[in-house]
């Protein structure tokens, strides 16, 4: 594929916990093209945040490669990585705990500029910060407020502003709009869209709100228990979901209209454990269509239809 910005190959991230080794991200591979948005959805706890962090090397990957513009950044040393971080940013899932409680909104947003000197001349930093605040809809009066004084939505916007202020090439957005009311959510989504158009930004966008994901993404990856189970263009997922988990997921979307009742696929069976998962398909225990082979053999993540990758034995 041409124009690939990030090529993640066989990425794994394991944690050591009391119970044993936890396979948070278990051998995933995907590519993100320049200027596109890859939506990342999946069950809570399936490893989305971990994937995002591992790509930015905030968690050192257990193994695998993250090839950014042809270079494996997993092998970068600190200095190279520092250069790299100007170009890659992340909006954290939890806006509150990711903001230093002792810094004011201004300092929080300006911090990346002070860190990466030269991106913006010193005397323009304030200008830039204010501009960014305006972009994400943070009022000027909040410039000296501290995170604990803000409501959930504004905290989240501070997080977004901080990621945007450096004009990065690539941003991991980990549920960036979950705490926003729909109006502001729309505002932010519009902003992200605009920036992408204007500057050619690339996003990995993690969210649970599927209508949001659909709106913003070019392609969508569905994760389940540390694995990517399906990946394709945004509308194909909705029109023609192949993986049983995706199907269940889509059926659970709440519709903001009263009176409409949809057939919901309830997931049966046990939530599987990420600690020492079995040899077979990760979704085996809860799959409606499971066969014996699913228990023993892990399905390949394959292109079942053009541009439509699925990991499932059942799908032809």
């Amino acid at each position: 594929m041409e124009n690939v910005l990030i090529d993640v190959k066989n990425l794994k991230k394991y944690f050591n916990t009391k119970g044993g080794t936890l396979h948070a991200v278990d051998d995933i591979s995907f590519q993100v093209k320049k200027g596109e948005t890859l939506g990342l959805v999946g069950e809570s706890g399936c490893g989305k945040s971990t994937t995002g962090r591992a790509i930015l090397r905030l968690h050192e990957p257990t193994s695998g490669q993250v090839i950014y513009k042809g270079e494996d950044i997993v092998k970068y040393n600190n200095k190279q990585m520092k250069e790299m971080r100007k170009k890659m940013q992340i909006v954290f899932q939890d806006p509150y705990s990711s903001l230093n409680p002792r810094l004011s909104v201004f300092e929080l947003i300006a911090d990346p500029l002070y860190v990466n000197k030269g991106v913006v001349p010193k005397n323009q930093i304030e200008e830039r910060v204010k501009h960014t605040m305006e972009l994400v809809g943070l009022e000027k009066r909040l410039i000296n407020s501290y995170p604990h004084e803000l409501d959930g939505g504004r905290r989240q916007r501070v997080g977004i502003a901080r990621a945007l202020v450096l004009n990065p090439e690539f941003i991991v957005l980990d549920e960036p709009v979950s705490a926003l009311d729909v109006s502001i959510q729309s505002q932010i989504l519009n902003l992200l869209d605009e920036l992408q158009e204007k500057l050619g930004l690339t996003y990995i966008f993690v969210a649970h709100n599927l209508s949001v994901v659909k709106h913003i993404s070019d392609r969508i990856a569905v994760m389940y228990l540390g694995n990517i189970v399906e990946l394709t263009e945004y509308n194909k997922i909705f029109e023609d979901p192949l993986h049983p988990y995706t199907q269940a997921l889509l059926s659970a979307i709440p519709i903001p209209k009263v009176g409409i009742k949809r057939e919901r696929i309830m997931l049966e069976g046990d939530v599987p454990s990420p600690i020492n998962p079995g040899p077979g398909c990760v979704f085996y225990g809860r799959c409606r269509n499971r066969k014996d082979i699913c228990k023993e053999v892990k399905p390949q993540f394959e292109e079942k239809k053009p541009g439509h990758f699925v990991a499932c034995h059942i799908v032809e």
Partner: protein
Amino acid sequence: MAETKAVANGKKNKNKSNSQLMGVWMRLKKNRLAIIGLVILVILILVAIFANIIAPYGYDEQDLQNTFQTPSLKHLFGTDEFGRDIFSRIIYGSRISLQVGVIAVGIAVVVGGFLGAVAGYFSGKVDNVIMRIMDILLSIPQMLLAISIVAALGNSLINLMIAVGVSSIPQYARIVRASVISIKNQEFVESAKATGSSDLRIIFKHVIPNCLAPVIVQATLGIGLAILTAAGLSFIGLGIKPPTPEWGAMLSGGRMYIRNYPHLTLFPGIAIVITIFAFNVLGDGLRDALDPKLKQ
């Protein structure tokens, strides 16, 4: 309208850089106790500067005929074993004692704090090496260190402060490290890393400000301890030379007379208490003022 906005902006520009300090100051100002502490401290400093004007007698003016006088109008705090005016000696003593306390603690806080922060932040090997060095330093008897410092660097007030400071470095290192260990796992540290902040910057900008509280407590109390330690050391021949007055030394020197003439020790003791009090309430206030959560 665009113009007025620009003007407003310009104004803010100027205030901006100071606004944080101003904010801290505003909050500090609201804390009555802290202001009392600050006032006392300012007075102490003024007393130290103008000691020669304030003190009714010279600090070394002996009057062997009038030793051990109890407090009277002539000698507000009485006289000591050489008939020297204790009040004047306390006034002059503020010079030395404040210096000793502040500088010794300063050395320890700066060096210890930094090492502790680095150790706690990096953990692993760095931590192990730094903290083991701290263990070594902690094990070296202060007295031996002091004697050696004098032997190596000569006998002076500065060296006394170095001796006291150096031997309390490990304390601050351990305290800061402990806080850092529990803070560095928080997500905002990770988020700073994500912006490409260097480790040093993370330590100084994000980690240390969040673990100041125990350091402030230890340091404000440490000033008093340093004064007393210095006094102890001056008796093994380090630093302060007689007849230079120093509160700690006055306190220890008077101990032999404690049963007969308690005022010899009482007044320097009170002076030390007041000084530590001032530093403590100011420290408490400062800590509260620095914590935006307690913003009132």
